[in-house]
């Protein structure tokens, strides 16, 4: 066992895991905070919706599509000047978070838009008939009804962010990805590579399981 994992520095692995957790956690938080209102706006301004605004929808949709169509590895590099401006550095855990949010927020926004579209139009109509204003319709009916779908969206976004966070190791982002690249790839330490990959797999499995449980808990259908 000792010989098999001779290159593995467990405290290094521990720190890297913690960094990955922080990167995924923080970028997920901001992705949800930014993506949720964008998703709601995409839904509301869409065709035959409450605040139908073809121009606003087209602009918003275009921006989201652009961010989503740039491969994340490119986005990481393109974002560097902006990240330096925002955080002061493009390196480490903190430097990885802005590009992660830039990749995660538009992705989550689309998932929110889709899950809001799944809400029965009759429910919106009934809420309108009760004399609700747009804010009340969103907060009182749309979001609670779409909650299971939104939670599923958060789960998918979190898992995507795990892989994005690992990728950010390429530009010195820190975390398990950084470890895998510096030791597993550049120094041919296969044992480190195996451990980091195994940890990422476990991480994703746990996220999916927790997400599924939450969706089940909030589904009343």
């Amino acid at each position, binding site marked *: 066992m000792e010989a098999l994992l001779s290159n593995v520095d467990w405290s290094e692995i521990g720190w890297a895991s913690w960094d990955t957790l922080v990167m995924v956690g923080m970028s997920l938080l901001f992705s949800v905070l930014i993506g949720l209102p964008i998703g709601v706006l995409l839904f509301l301004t869409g065709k035959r919706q409450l605040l139908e605004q073809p121009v606003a929808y087209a602009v918003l949709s275009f921006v989201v599509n652009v961010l989503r169509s740039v491969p994340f590895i490119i986005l990481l590099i393109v974002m560097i000047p902006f990240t330096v401006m925002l955080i002061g550095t493009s390196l480490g855990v903190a430097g990885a978070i802005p590009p992660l949010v830039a990749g995660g927020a538009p992705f989550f926004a689309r998932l929110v838009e889709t899950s809001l579209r799944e809400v*029965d139009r009759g429910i919106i109509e009934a*809420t*309108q*008939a009760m*004399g609700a204003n747009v804010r009340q319709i969103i907060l*009182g009916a749309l979001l609670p*009804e779409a909650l299971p779908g939104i939670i599923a969206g958060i789960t998918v976004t979190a898992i995507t962010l795990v892989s994005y966070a690992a990728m950010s190791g390429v530009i010195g982002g820190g975390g398990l990805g950084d470890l895998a690249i510096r030791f597993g790839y550049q120094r041919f330490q296969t044992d480190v590579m195996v451990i980091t990959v195994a940890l990422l797999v476990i991480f994703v499995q746990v996220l999916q399981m927790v997400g599924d449980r939450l969706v089940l808990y909030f589904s009343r259908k």
Partner: protein
Amino acid sequence: MIVFDQVQKSYQVGGRAIPALHPTDMTIETGEVFGIVGHSGAGKSTLVRLINLLEPPTGGRILIDDEDITGYNPAQLRAFRRKVGMIFQHFNLLSSKTVADNIAFPMKLAGIYSKTEIRDRVEELLARVSLTDHANKYPSQLSGGQKQRVGIARALACRPTILLCDEATSALDPQTTQSVLKLLADINRELGLTIVLITHEMDVVRRVCDRVAVMDAGRVVEMGPVSEVFLHPQHPTTRDFVFESESIDHEELQEDLQKADGRILRLTFKGESTYQPLLGSVARKSGVDFSILSGRIDHIKDTPYGQLTLSLVGGDLNVAMQEFEAADVHVEVLR
């Protein structure tokens, strides 16, 4: 009182205006149960949604208690909608809220009720629709009839003066339909609420409505008291609906009539005359023999009625006709 003054609605489809409702005049009295019957696509859904402006009209005025609601600003409109309850074919309950929270929802939206007021009102409404034991269940745990009763309780929460029913019983089985209609009739009687009910089943109209409008292709083609429209339909669409509800095959009936001898009369009894032993006494006095070709005895809302198609042979037909008319029976000579 709800007054439609030349109200019309059309939709823009590809640059062309497709009329959903041709200019319509209509008056619905306070406290009555007003039915609107029509096939799907006839414009009845549009018509009922005009009343709470879920669909804004493209022309004309809608007066509710002498106030033109088409000129309301958004805040006035929201306040007005609180006074108009609405129930739906597919119930449209919030699946994420319990039965009690669904009923409380419109009161919370109104923002003018205290917590205790809401709690008391929900309790009262739960009792009224006999769902007290289901207060903490979610809609998915209820049967269709129970869901519609939650819908009714929710619609009543803010003490509306008008209740709109959009095909409220169309997704329910016949027995559940009965109980929901009875509940609506009770509410109408006890609360004096005006009910506007759209349906494609004449039977629903017959059971609860005072007056009815029949719609076809975006127009009201016939309107009047249910007993008039039901027993003496004028427009072909109305006739179709009446025959359908009585499961009468029109062609079959005509064939039967051809086989029969003598004169053919249709007698319509209404109210007390339904219970009188008339046929025998008329036969004795006039000397006619009769055979019954078809017949039905039922109720229109609370009024009993009977409609019989007879063929009469021999005797003095004039005497028979006089006797029937003297007994307040409406006689139509079919042949």
